[in-house]
């Protein structure tokens, strides 16, 4: 057997191992309804704040600075409460989309990793037409 073949074989073996290890870290995009059915499994849900609540985000650092609870609704209209064990992300109120990574547990979506939440604001790297028009109409 030639050395090149050994090298190739080792590479293939390593790649398969990497692939398998990634499989363990993979999750799937779910809706809140299908996340409920997969209780306890890490899933990714794209949702937005449920504005039907007068206060969709509850964060009271006087009581606990490490607990943010908020209500979300997904594109199919399913609703859920989310519990995030970290400080409230700064721009959360004005987000138009939130990507959540966590587990459904007792009907509450729990996020235990700080990076398990991704806030998408209309403004971040693009010029928000709404903000632009606000700025202009204030004249």
């Amino acid at each position, binding site marked *: 057997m030639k*050395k090149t073949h050994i090298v190739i074989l080792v590479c293939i073996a390593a790649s398969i191992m990497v692939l398998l290890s*990634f499989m363990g870290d993979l999750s799937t995009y779910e809706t809140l309804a299908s996340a409920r059915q997969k209780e306890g499994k890490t899933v990714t849900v794209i949702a937005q704040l449920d504005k039907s609540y007068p206060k969709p985000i509850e964060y009271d650092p006087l009581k606990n600075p490490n607990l943010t609870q908020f209500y979300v609704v997904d594109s199919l209209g399913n609703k859920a409460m989310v519990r995030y064990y970290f400080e409230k992300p700064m721009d959360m109120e004005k987000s138009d*989309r939130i990507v959540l990574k966590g587990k459904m547990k007792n009907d509450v979506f729990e996020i235990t990793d700080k990076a398990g939440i991704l806030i998408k604001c209309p403004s971040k790297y693009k010029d928000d037409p709404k*903000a632009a028009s606000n700025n202009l109409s204030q004249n």
Partner: protein
Amino acid sequence: MNYIGEHLLPGQIGHFLLVLSLVASLVASLAYFFSANAKQPADADSWKRIARISFLVDAFSVFAIFGLIYYIISNHYFEYSYAWTHSDKSLLPKYLLSSIWEGQEGSFLLWAFWHAVLGMVLMRTSKKWEAPVMAVISFAQLCLATMILGVYVFDLKIGNNPFILIRESGIMSPENAPAFYNNGVLRSDYLQAIYSRGGQGLNQLLQNYWMVIHPPVLFLGFASTIVPFSYAIAGLWKKDYGGWSKQLLPWALFSGAIFGLGIMMGAKWAYESLNFEGYWAWDPVENASLVPWLVMVAGLHTHVIFNSTGYSLRTTYLFYILSFLLVLYSTYLTRSGDLQDTSVHAFVTSGMNWQLRIFVFVFLLPSLILFIARYKKIPHIAKEENSWSREFWMFIGSLVLFLSSLAIIIPTSFPLINKIFGTNLVIGEDQEFAYNRVQIFVAIIIGILTAIGQYLKYKNTVKSTFFKKIGWPTIIALAISLSVSLFGNIDYNKYGIGYLVAIHLAIFASLYAMAANSSYIWIGLNGKLKAAGASVAHFGFTMFLLGALISSSKKEVLSINTINPLNFGPDQKQKGEENLTMFQGVQIDMGKFWATYVKDSSTEGGKNMYFHIQMQRKDGKENFLLTPDLIKNSKGQEGYSANPDAKHYLLKDIFSYISYADKMAEGEDTAQYRNSTMQIKDTTFYSSGYIVLDTVLLNPPNRRIKFTSEDTAVMATLRVVSLNGGKSVTMQPYLLVQDNQIKHVPDTLIAQGLALRLSRILSEEKSFEIGVKESSRMTPFVALKVLEFPFINLVWLGVLFMITGFVMSIVRRAKLAKS
């Protein structure tokens, strides 16, 4: 129609230059192409002359466009959409440049700028390779020129023009800004209002000195990958497969150096100004620039092998071509908007996706087809490398780097893969670990290969000398790493014992490489520093690895919350405890420290709010101030962004940022003033006592607040008596008439959460309306996080060593190429 006050000339020149650069780069690519293919030397020369002039015209246009945009932004010509969207009058001059690269147009321009500079250097230095190499670069310039063209062909928009006026851009459509229209026609004096308000400003997070310098360096890195790519294409095209080896080597080294530096400058920016608690988060945007760098470094190593032994030329071709293609791919990934759901800082789509796709394919297809077609003709040595040779293990190392880059780019591309194949792949909640658990093994292998690599000789190594020479470095590294493992308290157990063992192995591997490479300068090179570039670069790179390993695995949260912990049971200790709430003036226990939130201060206009956190070591040995701040969001957005502050030591950083401050919610205070009408000596009650109105004075002499002789001030003096014991306190709210406007200046008693206001004077009844407000909001507080990063300086210092090593190699290889 003429509009008052518009400066149209720079825009008109700009439009002309955009078209000129497009035409000039088109002529340059064609002329260089014909020159490269010309049969007669005389033809080649005359084509080359045309090509050179055209390229210089293109370079001039690009520089001038850049200058014009800077001119427009620095003069605050807000009639130009680019200036209005990306800057405002309050912007410090040093950030005006950042405004240029905040937008996509500006960053394309930056890229074209560096291509122009690199092209002009190559014109002078590349000799017989000039025509084919410059043909490729000119063609890239042509593609970039279309990105900032902003022309409609039928209904298709090609590129975004940076010189577009705000009134042409759609921002000021009648729906968006009705105030500017008279009967549906834009008012001729519209600009007056725009000038008086100023522009949208620069994103507050980009107002940082690293953001002035990181984009140009990174884009020089991006741009530099085209040089090895062009030489590879030129080699395949002219069928002179290895002829460029010596000439190209310094360029490839330059690319590795500057690209690496650019990436790490971005990491430093993230560490200093973002609150994700580190410098690297495996965000797709970060990955997209790391991957081409990894492939470039792999190519660099196979190139060195080829240069010395004749092996590995085919892989060098592959890596150099892929590196540039990956730069194009990463451009697509970060700008197309496809990464929206996985990345914190990808651009949203600019409606140019089809153009970005073409940009990728117009290079990808011809280069790969050419590579495959000529693959068999690329010379290679049939005999296998000796297992005891340097080239064999260097090749393995390059292969590992390449595989590692695949393991990064494939998961990064999941959103795209999902889009194409309809799959549903996404990385779980712990993205960092998903990458780290793979890359830690890459670190171990690369560390060990870097350690032994240089002690091996090309072709064959005498085993006894090898062991004799590498013996001491091995022993030293083993001793150091064993003591680090035994006494360094590296017990990162979040992911179990297997990962912890891997961390220890990786620490050994990086220490081994550091020891072996530093001693190689004496053992292998007899102290000849000129030839030691590789040793220094490897030393730096593995020092960076060591710093990354230690600072991450020993990262410690100091602000552990023991005051209001949530009880989730013994198996979930980690949950919800990283932030501490601190009231102003109240000392709090923070591990080794006593911490006090002393006060806050803000800059003019309230742009930044600084929170002064006094940190006092419990043993009294040290006392310092941390001042993390909140930056008010720009671009017409409400809210704030956290900006961390760190105290730097030689061996660690104490890093902190504000998660919440009650100051952010000012105006949201829901408690209302309860008014009661009082005469002098009347009494009113509040929740914990009573208040007596003692006196009311007109224009009192002792002035707690500032007012001029033209203003009228009325001061009430009230006595507050708490029934919970304690002395009575005097409070003095004001009523101020200033410029015919009534202002209330309340007085607050923080300790009791009480505010008093003189609301109104009822002169007929000789009484006063006193407002009483009670609220928990009276005591300012912050929720903050404090972390300790041990040995983080190894990360930055390692990068500096690596770049130094690269520069040493560039100098040496450039000299060798000339001789």
